[in-house]
């Protein structure tokens, strides 16, 4: 990690506070853990001083660049807090504390809600909710694609990237080609500086 090294001492109360904070954030994370990033920044960087600004930024960026759910950026924050406390053991503890904190409450709630919805799936209200949300679900997916595709890009300069996105999109829409081939092709084109 870049940035000036940070050395902190974490007491048992600090670990509990970290855990408690993530438990709370979990309940607020409607729309994904990423929507609580601002609050995590306030708590970890500004209030407690457990992470440097660049560690915080890198945690988000690396998790985005890595395969898997975006929520893993929370694990990296825990990892870095632990590293700052001085050891790999603490870093692993940080991962466990942060991930359990961010996942347990939301997961339990969702599990119960899903069970309830399945049990009452013939009720009019449940059917109306699940089916009624469909247009929004479709719109949301397209929006995420557009937002990701257009982040920090100047069309005149970056048209090959746009072209790559569009070609990949059409191939995925129209064929059953395996995704990993497309990702590998994208990685290769990028490595060779063609896009």
């Amino acid at each position: 990690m870049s940035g000036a090294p940070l050395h902190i001492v974490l007491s048992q109360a600090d670990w509990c506070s970290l855990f408690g904070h993530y438990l709370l954030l979990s309940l607020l994370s409607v729309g994904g853990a990423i929507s609580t990033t601002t609050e995590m920044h306030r708590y970890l960087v500004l209030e407690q001083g457990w992470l440097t600004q660049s560690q915080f930024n890198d945690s988000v960026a690396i998790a985005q660049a890595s395969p898997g759910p975006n929520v893993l950026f929370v694990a990296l924050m825990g990892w870095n807090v632990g590293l700052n406390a001085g050891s790999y053991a603490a870093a692993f503890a940080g991962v466990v504390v942060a991930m359990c904190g961010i996942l347990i409450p939301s997961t339990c709630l969702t599990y119960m809600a899903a069970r309830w919805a399945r049990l009452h799936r013939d009720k009019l209200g449940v059917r109306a909710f699940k089916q009624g949300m469909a247009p929004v679900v479709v719109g949301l997916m397209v929006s995420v694609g557009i937002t990701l595709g257009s982040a920090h890009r100047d069309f005149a300069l970056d048209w090959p990237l746009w072209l790559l996105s569009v070609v990949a999109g059409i191939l995925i829409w129209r064929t059953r080609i395996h995704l990993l081939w497309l990702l590998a092709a994208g990685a290769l084109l990028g490595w060779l500086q063609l896009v």
Partner: protein
Amino acid sequence: MTEDQPRPASLTDLFMSFTLLALQGFGGVLAVVQREMVERKRWLTQEEFIEDWAVAQVMPGPNVVNLSLMIGDRYFGLRGAMTALAGILTVPLLLVLCLAVLHSHYANHPGVAGALRGMAAVAAGLIAATGIKLASALRNHPLPAWFSGAAAVLCVALLVVFKVPLAWTLLLLGGTCVGLTYRILKTRSLKAATP
């Protein structure tokens, strides 16, 4: 769920399937879930996917984590839910930690940065294409096709052009769609009850 619909053969199958799909998801695991679960393995229909997603999205927590939990639960109950969750998180978590350790050494290599850029462009295309494919499910929707189509377009406009927060979009647009769907379903069920 119908009788002849394919389903995961075992918990191991479930775990491996979720691990593999998580590893294909750069920035958008949800789109990979749709491609793997609906199109390739056919464990879910397009409609079931959208309905489960509606629940996963409005509950707190990462939506793809919530969705995996629900898909696992659908087939193997609590054990399945935990297995799917472990599948989508374990290997990506180890990978992201390795990346964090490597990051400081290779972050400035132009090839690495280019490869990440290329993969991100493919991922953006994937997500937008998934949205377009999901739109086909709107044809069987209780709401008239022109209306649900317009709602999906409006959703994109609100989120991408006007930058309305997700929570408001879900509440207002989603709420409207759910309300109208409720009325249509209610009228239908009344008609069915009084021949």
